[in-house]
């Protein structure tokens, strides 16, 4: 299983995560599929995405919005790509669209077949068991614009992912509380940092805050995680 979870931030801030991602591909001129969280104004996002990864000599991209109908020809090609990227945006709307388009089982199979799945913010949350993190904490959450009740997502990871984490008492308190209440692990990652999963190995690129049973552990830069 090969996954890369981006938190957010600028291209420059993400350089280290990008390098880790490119290393993971290990193939010349791969095909990368870009799945925006919503097709609304996604062309701009796609263009920025292409411009960014072109710097790493990638020139084959597919733009694949899932909240509009698509044909089987392009869908087949998407599933044959080397990388599928789940973009950022409203996590609830994104999950709703992926589910409605019946894409989720295909993404899981894609990963099991060895395909690389990357995600940014909402896209990274999507790889976990459910998207509860999108609605938490109260002061920094996505609006559930589609009134989604079933929050189950791809279920590829046994931890929660919280992007755009800010290292301050307000956030720390909120996540300690949550991890104590639900007894589940949260990896909270600030912008510019990320998580790379390669088979059984989970490692952080840049700083990462691990919340477990009401405690926080600040992980040093670029370490392998084990808990």
């Amino acid at each position: 299983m090969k996954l890369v979870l981006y938190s957010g931030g600028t291209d420059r801030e993400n350089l280290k995560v990008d390098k880790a991602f490119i290393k993971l591909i290990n193939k010349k001129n791969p095909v990368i599929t870009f799945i925006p969280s919503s097709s609304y104004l996604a062309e701009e996002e796609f263009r920025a995405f292409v411009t960014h990864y072109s710097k790493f000599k990638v020139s084959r991209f597919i733009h694949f919005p899932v909240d509009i109908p698509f044909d089987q020809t392009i869908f087949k090609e998407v599933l044959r790509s080397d990388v599928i990227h789940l973009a950022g945006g409203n996590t609830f709307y994104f999950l709703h669209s992926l589910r409605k388009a019946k894409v989720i089982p295909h993404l899981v199979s894609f990963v099991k077949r060895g395909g690389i799945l990357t995600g940014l913010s909402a896209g990274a949350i999507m790889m976990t068991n459910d998207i509860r993190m999108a609605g938490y904490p109260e002061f920094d959450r996505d609006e559930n614009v589609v009134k989604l009740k079933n929050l189950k997502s791809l279920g590829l990871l046994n931890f929660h992912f919280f992007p755009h984490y800010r290292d301050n008492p307000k956030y720390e308190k909120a996540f300690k509380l949550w991890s104590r209440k639900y007894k589940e692990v949260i990896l909270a990652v600030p912008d510019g940092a990320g998580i790379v999963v390669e088979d059984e190995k989970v490692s952080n690129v840049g700083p990462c805050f691990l919340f477990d049973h009401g405690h926080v552990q600040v992980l040093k830069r670029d370490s392998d995680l084990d808990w």
Partner: protein
Amino acid sequence: MGTFKQNPTQTPGIRHYPHFSHINGRHPFKEFVPEGFVDYSARRLKSGKITYFNFDLAKEMGLISKDHPHTLNSELEREIFQTFNLMIINEYDLEHKIKFSEDDLLPHKYMATRYLQLQHPDKAGRTSGDGRTIWNGTVRHQGKTWDISSCGTGATKLSPACNINKKFYQTGDPAISYGCGLAEVAEGIETLFFSEVLHQNHFQTERILAIIEHEKGLGINVRAHQNLMRPSHFFCHLKQSNYQNLKAVTDYYIHRELENKNWPLSQFKNDKEKYRSLARTIAERFAKMSAQFEDEYIFCWLDWDGDNILMDGGIIDYGSIRQFGLFHAEYRYDDVERFSTTILEQKQKARYIVQCFSQISDFLITGKKKSLSQFQKSAEVKLFDQIFEQEKNKNLLQKIGLKKQYQEELLKNQKDLVIKFRKAFTHFERAKSKRGVYKVADGINRDAIFCMRDILREMPQLYLSKNQNLNHEEFLDVIKSSYAKRADLKLTPMRKRQIDRFQRFYNQIVDHLSKKNGEPRNKILLDITMRSSVINKFDRITGDSISHIVQKVRHLRPKLSPVEMDALVKEFRNYQILDPDQKRQTSSVHERQKHIMRGLSTIVRDCREGL
């Protein structure tokens, strides 16, 4: 007499919106063409509320300052009301000696212009023209003069109803609809959404400046453009062989175009050169316009009267305007007494208008009106055909997603290849359903079955990914629309050949550009991919979607302030930018408007292949 245009500012002597005071019924057309209009006294209305004010357009016109916030303060509101919330005193009112308060009377008269209209029994433009519209006046800002007119300001004697039934109508007479002189707010909203999107995408069009609502969904729709003259303003005088008036209209029109620096020449050696330039310029403009309409699937009912189009090829009167999602080449609007032209017949009508301008030009130069048939092969008609062809080629290359430099290279050195691809493209674009012609809500149609935007958007991506052509089945899977039934999608030997031709020529174009520019093929395809994803966006507006959007906005509108409407229109316009070189403005709408936008984009999506 009552008080007019009282200074509404809090600071005595200072008027914050001084340009509004110039919009008072006076218009240069009146001096140039004294017989070209009917003048009406007008009175100010007391009721009504502002539904919409176009802040961006008002800034372009200099009515408000560039840094004016997009909010309506009481002073601006008052200016809009005092300037545009008015009703004419028509022949019926005078005949019946209807009394109006002296305080409400406006000091100047407002004109309804005369022009040719095919609905009128006269057929020569003696009785036809603005039936429910008056021209408010002009404003000049940064070297451009703008015309402003208002629709829904009362029944004039130039309406079809008045002339068919040979009587004057009271404004608002429920016995007649179109001729009653009033307009619906819904018409204004339709024009607003449609025209703002088309304007953003480089179409010439009238635009809505303001909408003032009255009771029962009626209102006044204020429109603006840099020159609101139509070919029909010329044609009525041509039909009547009235040299003086025809010359006056032409001189007026060219004067304005020169004033606005919208004319290819800045001065003329003599009248001959001046009037030649009229026919030539119209030929160029109408060739470009009709090619653009055809390629962007704009259905505009062009006819011999030249009524539904502006002189610069701009769209006016959105009542019968549509944008199709597919090339529905056999759609005809049913106007009870007649069917409209089809999208393919528009070119012939545009050429006919050019032919008329050749006749006008000759008439003005020689003083003798020759038969129109003598101008069937005039230099301007030939020029029209030539430019139309060039534009069709250029438009197709633009649609593929090629940047300007590549388009120019291909048009210069690979014209035959472009024409071959266009032929293959047209084969699929014009393919029709086996279902045949059938009745639709407002006319008849025979469905197009292929969505060219989809194939142009997906093909470069699939080439990048697959490194090979699509097989026949894949090609049809991508290009088929929801209108295509199994019988329409049979893979006949002919169709297979056409699929191969389409892809062969497309690839030859890409390969040529790759070789010529020393760029890898994938780089060219990637550039096309990104541009094409904007140009051939999945959800593009259609006439159907605009109709549904108007319903939705009308439903929401009681709770939408003019400022919120402005933000919503701006966001919608932004969402429908189909020009990859145009930068989108950052969205500044609030959560509530975002929610509304989601609803509107769903409508656009659902209607994307329709009429």
